[in-house]
């Protein structure tokens, strides 16, 4: 049997295993190893198994993930977030879905500090979801907002995704980072519009509190909220002043959170251990899945899928817009199963020559590629941002509810992607004037 057939069978089996409750981190390597053995025998499969887990885990850049998780857990468990949400509840009460809108923009602010969508979703999930749930927000709306707005982490600098794309395509990273800002903001606005409209049509999604705080009460609520804005200012400030890189800012942010909690007398041994444990568990389970996703990437590459797709695209002799549509469909499908790094590694070798041949602007393409891999973080069955949020909320919300809530955000994404495709200037204008 040839490589592509084996790949097709393996993906079919993967679907069956996932449907049969096999944990994702076990289903992915099962089919990948099976496929590699079928293609090339046991030696490559087992050789890879010996070295890949360590080589993947031993990463400086990815260390931002556990650190931002820890920061989120610390701020939540020490109660730093509670007063902020009490204030937000008063201030945003008039706006339909006010807390969801506030969380959405808080994510955008946090994204300015975090290089990764996973880290943004993790930290913001810890801050915002329990508060929204305790105010009776719809579970899908609350978790969907955070999982989706986490993807802003890749658009507002710093961004690991753009660094990776820039390295791979040899495009200027600074230009790429700037190009992502406007699309990121458009996304945040689209999310906000959708949340407000949905909550206007169905007020039950986000119950408004009965209390009617006067201006005095509203101002009084502000005096307790200083720790969290201070924390965000510390982190963003440390990055932009050049004291810390995005990776280092994760550790620094955790330390700041710890110090603030100590200074305000909110830290107990119990909350500390609980926060650390949460960060550890989430990191371990996410990376365990990622190892499987990388094995799948390697299996598909061995099966010759990149070459096959490249030949197909070349033989169709498509127009520019058709090539972009094909790219979007391919990323949508791959994004269902693979991790962002895996998708880039698999697809860029195929698409780059095609884009180059058509003379397309690789900065604009970079924005589209990052957009699509970020969408992949939100789509089932393997949607890493949804998993992060699921890990943060525990048993309170099911994965199905999270994906259902994300459906509306994916509609927004469709609109945003259409805008970005139709008007490349949305991506290219800002880098042009800077």
């Amino acid at each position, binding site marked *: 049997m040839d490589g592509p057939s084996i790949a097709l069978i393996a993906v079919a089996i993967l679907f069956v295993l996932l449907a049969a409750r096999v944990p994702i981190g076990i289903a992915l390597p099962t089919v990948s190893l099976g496929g590699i053995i079928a293609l*090339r*025998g046991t*030696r*490559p499969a087992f*050789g*890879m198994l*010996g*070295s*890949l887990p360590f*080589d993947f885990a031993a990463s*400086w*850049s990815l260390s931002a993930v556990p650190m931002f998780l820890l920061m989120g857990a610390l701020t939540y468990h020490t109660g730093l977030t509670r007063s902020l949400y009490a204030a937000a509840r008063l201030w945003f009460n008039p706006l339909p879905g006010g807390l969801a809108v506030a969380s959405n923009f808080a994510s955008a602010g946090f994204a300015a500090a975090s290089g990764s969508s996973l880290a943004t979703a993790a930290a913001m999930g810890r801050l915002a979801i329990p508060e929204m749930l305790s105010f009776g927000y719809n579970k899908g709306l609350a978790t969907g907002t955070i999982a989706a707005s986490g993807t802003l982490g890749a658009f507002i600098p*710093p961004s690991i995704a753009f*660094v*990776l794309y*820039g*390295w*791979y*395509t*040899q495009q*200027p*990273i*600074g*230009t790429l980072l700037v190009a992502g800002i406007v699309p990121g903001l458009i996304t945040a606005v689209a999310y906000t519009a959708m949340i407000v409209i949905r909550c206007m049509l169905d007020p039950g999604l986000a119950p408004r509190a009965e209390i009617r705080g006067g201006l005095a009460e509203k101002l009084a609520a502000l005096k307790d909220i200083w720790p969290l804005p201070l924390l965000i200012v510390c982190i963003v400030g440390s*990055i*932009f*002043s*050049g*004291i*810390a*890189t*995005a*990776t280092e800012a994760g550790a620094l942010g955790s330390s700041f959170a710890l110090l603030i909690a100590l200074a305000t007398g909110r830290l107990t041994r119990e909350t500390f251990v609980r926060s650390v444990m949460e960060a550890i568990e989430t990191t371990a389970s996410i990376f365990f899945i990622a190892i499987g996703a990388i094995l799948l*990437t*390697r299996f598909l*590459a*061995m099966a*010759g899928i*990149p*070459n096959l797709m490249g030949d197909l695209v070349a033989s169709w002799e498509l127009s520019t817009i058709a090539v972009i549509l094909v790219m979007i469909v391919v990323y949508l499908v791959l994004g269902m199963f693979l991790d962002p790094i895996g998708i*880039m*590694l*698999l697809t*860029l*070798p195929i698409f*780059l020559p095609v884009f180059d041949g058509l003379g397309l602007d690789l900065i604009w393409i970079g924005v589209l590629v990052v957009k699509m891999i970020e969408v992949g973080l939100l789509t089932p069955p393997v949607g890493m941002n949804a998993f992060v949020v699921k890990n943060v909320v525990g048993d309170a919300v099911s994965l199905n509810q999270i994906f259902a809530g994300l459906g509306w955000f994916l509609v927004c994404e469709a609109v945003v992607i259409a805008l970005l495709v139709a008007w490349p200037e949305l991506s290219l204008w800002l880098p042009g004037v800077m």
Partner: protein
Amino acid sequence: VPGAARAETSLTYGSSLPAPHVIHEKALAPFFERVAEDTGGALRWELIPGGTMGSVKEAVQIIEDSIVDSGLVLDIYTRQELPVTSMFGDMIALTDDFIVFAAAANEMQLVACEACRTERADKDLVSLAYYAPDPYLLMCADDTRGYDDLQNKKTRASGRMGVLVETFGATTVTIPSSEVYEALQRGQANCSVASAAWLESYNLSDVVTNIIDLPMGSYFNAGLLYMNKATFDGLPEDQRAAIRGNLAKLVADALFAYRTQSGEALAEAERKGVALVEPDPKLTEALAEFRDGEIANTVATAEEAGLDGAAERVETFMALVDKWRRIVAETGDDEAAFADALDREIFSRAEF
């Protein structure tokens, strides 16, 4: 080609470099084409770039285990797997002319060092060609222009380059290359040891203000074409001959492409307003002094790691450097003449 049934072989080449890298575009892709042509299409290669099949640290292992058939192997990551082959990597700071050192490394590895060859064969590996990237320069994002300015400056460097900048009086900071741009822009590092290619690939020309025009070293011992030994030995004789016949041009292409790219990148950076600064005497003296100690250090490190005959091997290598200095002085800018010399002195004599 006669109508007889002939096996078509398709080999994979795994690389940790990005797809549009100069090594892929200017050296490997043309090499793969020439080999396909010379074998009437019977031997083809597929390049799998970007570390898809394994990171740079896994390079030896993925070839050994046939995850890929061939690939790029950097000696800094093979110190324990291939200690004899990799021991020359300690001498990178000696590289005043990267083309000379790369040619010498090819002759050392493929002709003059039997222990290197057996060591690789024991790991089911055969090595066919080596290259050197263009040399490291000191690039600064502030007003650092010479030795005195460099004191206590945070300078991004690793390995022997890190030790070197320490002797210049700078403070070595460790930052992964993917974060160099950010680090220079925001001041986590004032300077970085970097190759000219990074001016474009990492967009350093946007943040760098001064480049000190002093070649400080190059990883001249980088494996350009490693293959799984069983796979190589299993190829028909004519296919192996086609590979061998094209190796000299592969190496020459890689080195000259690096030289061209480096020159263009520096010129482009200057056009963007980056100053190319002549090194001051204190700096060149400090570098010369450091280089004097590097041979002894290489031998000592190798002996510490339990390798026999390190001193003789280093001596042999330095004699080859002198030999190639003379040859390169003659061939100059003539790439074809340089490739002919490589073929005559190395690839026609090498046993793989």
